[in-house]
């Protein structure tokens, strides 16, 4: 079962969004930085928080908590942006805090239950067992799909 989820061992970045611990393979993360002031914008997507100027490019910022519709208890000191690339575009994911980077071996992945701490399972590929707790592996394509709001 686990083979179908992640064939290879991978290094993952772990961060928090509300009550959920989320992981992304390090290869999918372009940058992590503390959030600069975000210029609010007005789009049809409530979870689009705004845009920032990242070295001369305009980067859309997505509030993962709002995207997944989970209650956020935001640790205000630690709002970070995880920069990912999808298609040709850079998108910043607004997360509550960066925890760790861990090595995940393929046998520690599990299928996702129907919800993960209140968030729909569609947003995730798999669960990863990290020592004590579970890390939900983010499905970027699904999360950033604009047709599926």
């Amino acid at each position, binding site marked *: 079962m686990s083979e179908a989820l992640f064939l290879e061992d991978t290094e993952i970045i772990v961060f928090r969004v509300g009550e959920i611990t989320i992981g992304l393979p390090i290869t999918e993360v372009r940058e992590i930085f503390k959030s600069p002031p975000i*210029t*609010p914008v*007005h789009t049809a997507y*409530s979870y689009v928080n705004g845009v920032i100027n990242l070295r001369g490019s305009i980067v*859309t910022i997505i509030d993962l908590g709002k995207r997944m519709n989970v209650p956020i208890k935001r640790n205000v*000191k630690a709002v970070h942006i995880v920069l990912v690339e999808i298609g040709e575009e850079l998108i910043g994911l607004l997360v509550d805090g960066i925890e760790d980077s861990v090595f995940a071996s393929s046998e520690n992945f599990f299928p996702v239950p129907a919800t993960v701490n209140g968030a729909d399972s569609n947003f995730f590929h798999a669960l990863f067992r990290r020592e004590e707790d579970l890390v939900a592996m983010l499905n970027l394509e699904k999360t950033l799909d*604009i047709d599926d709001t």
Partner: protein
Amino acid sequence: MDDMDEEVLQLFVEESREHLAGIEDDLLAMESMDGLDEDLVNRVFRTLHTIKGGAGFFDLVNLQNLAHSMENILDLIRKGELQTTKMIVSSLLAGADTVASMVDNLDSSNGYDISEHLSIFDGILKGDLASEEAVEVSSESDAVAEAEEQELSPGDLADSEQTGSEEPVSATEPKTTASDPAESIPPADAAPVSKAVAEASTPTTSGTKATSAKGAATSGDQSIRVHLSLLDRLMELAGELVLTRNALIQSVETGDPSLLQPAAKKVDAITSQLQRAIMSTRMQTIDIVFSKFRRIVRDLSGQLGKQINLEILGEDVELDKTIIEALGDPLTHLVRNSIDHGLETPAQRKEAGKPAFGQLRLHAFHEAGQVVIEVSDNGAGIDPQRIARKAIEKGMMSEEEIARMSEKDIVRLIFHPGFSTAEEVTDISGRGVGMDVVRQNLAKVGGVADIESELGVGTTIRVKLPLTLAIIPSVLVGISTENFAIPQVNVVEMVGIAPDEIKTRIQHVGGVAMLRLRGELVPLIELSDFFDMTQTYIDAETGAVNEERRDRLSDRRENDNSDEATKDLRRGVERRESADSSVNIVIVAAGAFKYGIRVDELHESAEIVVKPLGMHFRGSNEFSGATILGDGTVALILDVDGVRRLSGASESQQTDSDMRARDAEVERDVDSCSILIIQHAQDEVYAVPLQLVARIERFSTQDLQNVGGRKAISYRGGILPLISLEGIVSSQALDVSAKEFYVIVYTVGNEEIGLMASDIRDIVDYRDTIDNRTHKRAGIAGSMIVNGEILQFLDLYGILELDDPEWTGHLVSKSNGETGLTILLVEDSPFFQSQMKKEIEAAGFIVLTADDGLLGLEVLHSHPEIAMVLTDIEMPNMDGLEMVRAIRAQPKYKDLPLVAVTSLAGATAEKKGIEAGVDEYQIKLDREQLVDVCRRLAKPRAVSA
């Protein structure tokens, strides 16, 4: 094929394309030429010869054969053995199209069927008669040609060729069509319109279009030709930049602030020059688009039996490559429309008393920092009645609405979406085929189209385009906590409404806020009604995130009744009133529709670099992109058409008779001020008050002299000192590329000074408020918007002081110390008020100000020390003359000097003023006179008991 061959092949393709690009024009020139131009024929011959040679080398048999047989014909022409006729040129043109297509698709070129071409060329070689037969045979499948065939017996064919101009249909139609193997023209009478449109996309008819588009797609997209001198210029600038960087680093390292300033200035100057130079590498002449119309007009007029003179003007106007590429289709559409529906047949024209030849004109020119392209014809024009009927039939407009519209606005309806789709086939005389599409295509590159038509006289379509897309001049505005950029193309003007005018000028009709603007009512849009404008950024320190935004936004959208919008606007207005600041409104134009956006702050106008927005913005039409401001923050660029759609504002609101009636009521006269618009450099224009200008002269750059380190010119037996705005208020050098420049002569003290300008743009009567905050700085008294362009209003005395205080010191009358006298200045325009106050204060007077006549009287009563009153005439509440009468009516003010200041001198106004009791009339911005009159008239007043 090995690499070596591949490279040579590529060279061959590029070279061939280059040659072929000119062949069409050459062939058309051959046709229109009476005699034989050997150079021309030789050039075409050589082109084909080169291609033939290359094709032979690469074993491209088909291409070689076709080029060879064309070459044979040209050889005959060259020797004078063959007359160039319309038919021969048509065949050659068709052949050239096929050759070009083959060159673009070398791999499949051997699969092209060129037999028809060859048989036609063979026929020509054998003699005219036979060739005509060949033409007929080959075009049997063609419905059009079939119809014509009956008229074309072989015998009179040669004849009809000679008299081709009289019978263009029968002479050219079968040949053009037949000579093109791949082409199949649907019956001309069935659907000329849809056909014309469809043809634009088939590669055969508009061969040039297809090839050039392909060329652009293959080679053009990756490379661009840049003149060597431009590259040299770039190198030079890069060199300068390096030197300046070194200076900058040095000054930072040594910590010497005196070095920093000049280095920063230099970086500024070099950057803008570099930017311009790099931008100009992307610039291409519009000729690339225009030239193909020679062929299109020729072919189409032949097909439709019309006689058309094509006039092309301004083909050397340059535009950004992207825009040039996007222009082809919409312009083709417009030209085809003109030929198809605008221009009549010779018979119809004769009947209408017009010359048989219709005029079609393509004209490109610069206007107000934009490029304008006009497509005009002297054809039948558009009947507004027809359009009106169509609009009513389609349910787009009600009869009442139509009745209230001007004819011009009715004609503009053809740009309306869905106006014309259904009538393409049936309605031939009506115009407006897919004009909506044209408008949309142009809008994609920031273009705006407008139409003017007079029934029976002709039609002109004006397309306004930005010079480039990457960097657009914009007005930056602040709404709530956010900044937005509005492209200057869309900005009509900026209006500031004083607190006491808000009630009369902003009205709410049917739940919609409307602004009264010079007899027009313009709907107002409050952006915060559509966007949630609360502060939602996440502060890195506090991390405060506003989580209510979605609720409010959806709220707004759900009950999108405009009552709420009205309330909001009122609230906004009242808040502003109490804060005693005026309401700022940017009037923008979305197509022909005008509306106002209320803004909290007007920031500077700036050239902004457009950055694309991500996929989450794809659904939102309100923004066309984003830009990064000087402080690193992001501002979104408003798409005024998208905002209009979002707000649901429509044109019909503007013509509501109810509002018109109200509108007539109380439009107060505004001071008008004649201004002279001068150009200093490209995109840099300034306004000068015309009253201060003594003369305008034109000189050649050779006449310029240097006298004591200053520019001057010998003039009327003396020396006229000149000043240039460069280094004073402009970082750009005076544009003297025309080798001539203008000098605006004005008087300071008893001497004349000349202000250098590269061009005189216009003289306009400006009737609006002059913005005295946004652009104010030394030498610039304020700013105004004329025709969508921001003008900086020059302070003619201020620039003198900036230029060289020592040299100009003796000219500018300095304060003779404090006079201790108090002068009351009554003036409603903040711009003129602050300007005059400054000048009189500089002369040593104490100045009290009042905004209108009533306030003026109040101030006068409470300040017995006032020694003189200066007043404007046109003012709200109580105008100047009324105030003067009121003052004069009181015995204690019998001798108080009263001076009227005006921006527009006129004998009648002066007479009225004198009758009311004014002592003197003065011009507002003439500092010398103003100060002089104060000195002469203001006398200490014995404070009456």
